């Protein structure tokens, strides 16, 4: 093995592989958590405004800088701010699921308006393309120095949910019922949603918007292993990591120049899922 190949594998490919695995696992497991805890099959990791917040944060940073570290930090910070705002508002009104989801959608819409404003004022020759390209999603810029925050959040988040995986089942029951079994749903739900949001924010900060993984992977995992979160959570992590890694390999090699991962994920991933999983979903989707 020549020194060049060695350097390439160690310093370019490996961090990229690690990033793909982390982003895929994060989006999938947070999607499974959001769907379960918010008791809604239509939601994904974007529902509480975290992705929109991160997108706005990144765009805002790109207005003034090209430093990936600052862009990431800003994306992560505004993503985190979204969930805190959702909870600050939600808590005042009892933090029921309905309140959280409605607040999340509104916060998300507000961030989208802010993002539009940033795009509107961005320099159309230089900054606007950078923002647009960032939003398309991709991990080609992954380097060791930018991967480690994502890797740490992922490792902690995944450990947390693997440990919590049995308890998550109880958070999918009605509040009265869970309370009668000694569980304070509102508190537990808060902790679980904040951890899942951290995972989403750190992923979006690294990879931009990769849309549907957090929606479809949990459904596919449920069709394979059933609705029990003790098995669903590990399955979502595995499937999400594998799929994003495979998609990134294709995005890297399919054409002479790279196809943005967010686009490729939609173009290839969705037809594949429609063909492979729709039948399985109808038979045993795990939802009532």
């Amino acid at each position: 093995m020549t020194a060049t190949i060695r350097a390439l594998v160690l310093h370019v490919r490996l961090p990229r592989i690690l990033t793909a695995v982390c982003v895929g696992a994060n989006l999938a497991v947070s999607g499974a958590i959001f769907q379960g805890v918010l008791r809604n099959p239509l939601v994904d990791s974007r529902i509480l405004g975290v992705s929109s917040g991160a997108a706005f944060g990144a765009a805002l940073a790109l207005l003034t800088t090209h430093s990936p570290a600052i862009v990431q930090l800003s994306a992560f910070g505004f993503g985190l701010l979204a969930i805190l705002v959702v909870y600050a508002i939600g808590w005042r009104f009892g933090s029921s699921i309905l309140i959280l989801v409605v607040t999340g959608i509104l916060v998300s819409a507000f961030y989208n308006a802010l993002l539009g404003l940033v795009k509107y004022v961005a320099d159309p020759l230089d900054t606007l393309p950078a923002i647009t390209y960032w939003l398309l999603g991709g991990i080609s810029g992954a380097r060791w120095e930018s991967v480690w925050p994502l890797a740490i959040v992922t490792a902690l988040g995944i450990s947390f949910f693997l440990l919590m995986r049995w308890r998550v089942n109880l958070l999918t029951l009605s509040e009265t019922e869970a309370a009668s079994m000694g569980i304070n749903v509102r508190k537990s739900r808060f902790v679980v949603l904040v951890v899942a949001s951290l995972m989403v924010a750190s992923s979006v900060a690294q990879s931009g918007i990769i849309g549907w993984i957090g929606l479809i992977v949990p459904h596919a995992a449920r069709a394979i292993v059933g609705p029990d979160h003790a098995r669903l959570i590990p399955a979502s992590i595995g499937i999400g990591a594998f799929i994003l890694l495979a998609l990134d390999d294709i995005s890297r090699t399919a054409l002479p120049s790279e196809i943005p991962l967010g686009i490729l994920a939609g173009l290839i991933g969705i037809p594949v899922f429609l063909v492979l999983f729709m039948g399985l979903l109808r038979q045993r989707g795990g939802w009532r």
Partner: protein
Amino acid sequence: MSLAAIDLCYAYTSDRLVLDGITLSLDEGGVTFILGGNGSGKTTLLECLCGIRSPRSGSVRLDGKEAHRLPPMQRARRVGFVPQIHEPIFTYSVYHVVLMGRSPHLGPFAKPRHSDHEAVAQALDALDLWPLRNRPYTEISGGERRLVLVARGLAQGVRYLLMDEPDAHLDPLHQNDLFSRVRELAIQGFTFAISSHSPNSALTYGDSALLLSQGRPIAYDRAAVVVAPAPLAAAYGLEFELISDESGPRAVLPMRATRTQS
């Protein structure tokens, strides 16, 4: 062992008491029915007895201590609740639904151990539900679901089981199946409080009964005393006729009344 409400009052909003001066003591191994019209406070009373709502005044005492002040896990190992509408959104298997009853014995990061699975198997066995264990809970019949939730209570290890209108939407045969199980468990020392819209269920299967009207107790006594025309008329605003035979009172029948404009 005791679970009792003493002069219990509860309100959701500041201007209206939903429960007003309820005193009630669940005798060990007894079956107490809670009767009353729609909105009379039956469910709220059960939730207060369960310790998940804190009284506005008065108290609910579980073994002498205020129920809503007990650590939730400790409380949940003694008192179980069977909600009226239990529609999990996921198609959990019967086994998993019963296994969730073990949660008061497990920390947030724990997963069920061998002993937990044994408790589930015993609970399913006790109610002859073992053959259903792998069926999705959402696909079994209404009567079977009520029994599964009773099994969940057994797995939970409780001595008191509070059931919210378990006979709703059940045909007479399945009501009889369910309440016969309840009677069998009562003989083994389990204590039940059951809310119901059917005074005759209280008469047939209950030891004592509490009759509520707009959150106030109308009568609280042996079921055969409470389920009688006078208290029922006071609670429901409808005349009842008592049907008796040599064994005692058997049923009450509402008298047909023309709706009067009031």
